[in-house]
C-alpha cells in the first residue's frame, strides 16, 4: 500500500457498535475528494455500511481533523475523518 494516499476513518457510539470497528483506512482516489464522496463510498459497501450510511441510516455527524464538517468539506491525504451520532454530553 506504500505510496497510495489514504485517510483514517473513525467511528463512535452506535456507528462503531453496528460496524464492529472503531477505525479503518480508506484509499483516496485521485482528484478532489469531499466528505460526501466518503459517505457515498461507504454506503455502496454491503450490509451494515449500507444501513448506516445509506438513506435509511440514522442521523450522522462528521468531523474532519476534529472539526465539525459537512458533505461539501474537502478531504485530503492523511486526514482523520470521524463519523458519529449527534452528541449527547453534558
Amino acid at each position, binding site marked *: 500500500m506504500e505510496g497510495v494516499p489514504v485517510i483514517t476513518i473513525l467511528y463512535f457510539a452506535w456507528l462503531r457498535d453496528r460496524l464492529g470497528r472503531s477505525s479503518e483506512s480508506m484509499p483516496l482516489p485521485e482528484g478532489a475528494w469531499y466528505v460526501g464522496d466518503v459517505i457515498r463510498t461507504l454506503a455502496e459497501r454491503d450490509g451494515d455500511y449500507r444501513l448506516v450510511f445509506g438513506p435509511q441510516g440514522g442521523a450522522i455527524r462528521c468531523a474532519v481533523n476534529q472539526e465539525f464538517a459537512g458533505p461539501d468539506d474537502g478531504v485530503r491525504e492523511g486526514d482523520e475523518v470521524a463519523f458519529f451520532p449527534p*452528541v449527547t454530553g453534558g
Partner: protein
Amino acid sequence: MTIRVSVQTAAFSMDAERARLMQGAHEAGGVGAFLGVVRGGAGLRALTLEHYPGMTESMIGRIAAEAQARFGLLGCTIIHRVGRLGVGEPIVLVLCLAAHRAAALDATAFVMDWLKTRAPFWKREEFEDGRTAWVDAREADDAAAARWARDGRAG
C-alpha cells in the same frame, strides 16, 4: 483568565475546583455553577459516557474561551466525566468566575447549552433488566444553544 478543561473518569470536588479557580482572583464577586448528574427513572441503572479524545478537549476549550469573551469571565472550569456512572453520580461540572452574579450565571447557562450540542460525548443507557441503548440527541438542546446566536444579551 484561567481556563481549566478536564475529561476524566475520576470524581471531582466542587470545593477543590472552586478554590483552584478563585486562587488570586481578588476582583471576583462570585462563581456560577452547574453540576449535572445521572438522572434516574424508567429502570435506568447507569450511563456509560464515550467521547472523541482530542476533539472533546479542543471543543470544550473553545466553548470556555467563547464564554470568557462574551461574559467577561475571570475564570472558567469545565470538567466532564467519561466511563460508567450510576444514577445520581455527577457527570459534568461548570464553574464560571465573574465580578458580578449575572455574568457568572449567564455564562454557566451558555457553557452548558453549547456543551450539549458541540462537545463530542455520547451516552449509552444501561437498565435494571440488562438492556442498553444509546441516548438520542434532544432537539431541545439544539434550540437552547441556538438562542445564544439571536439573543441580545451578548455578542
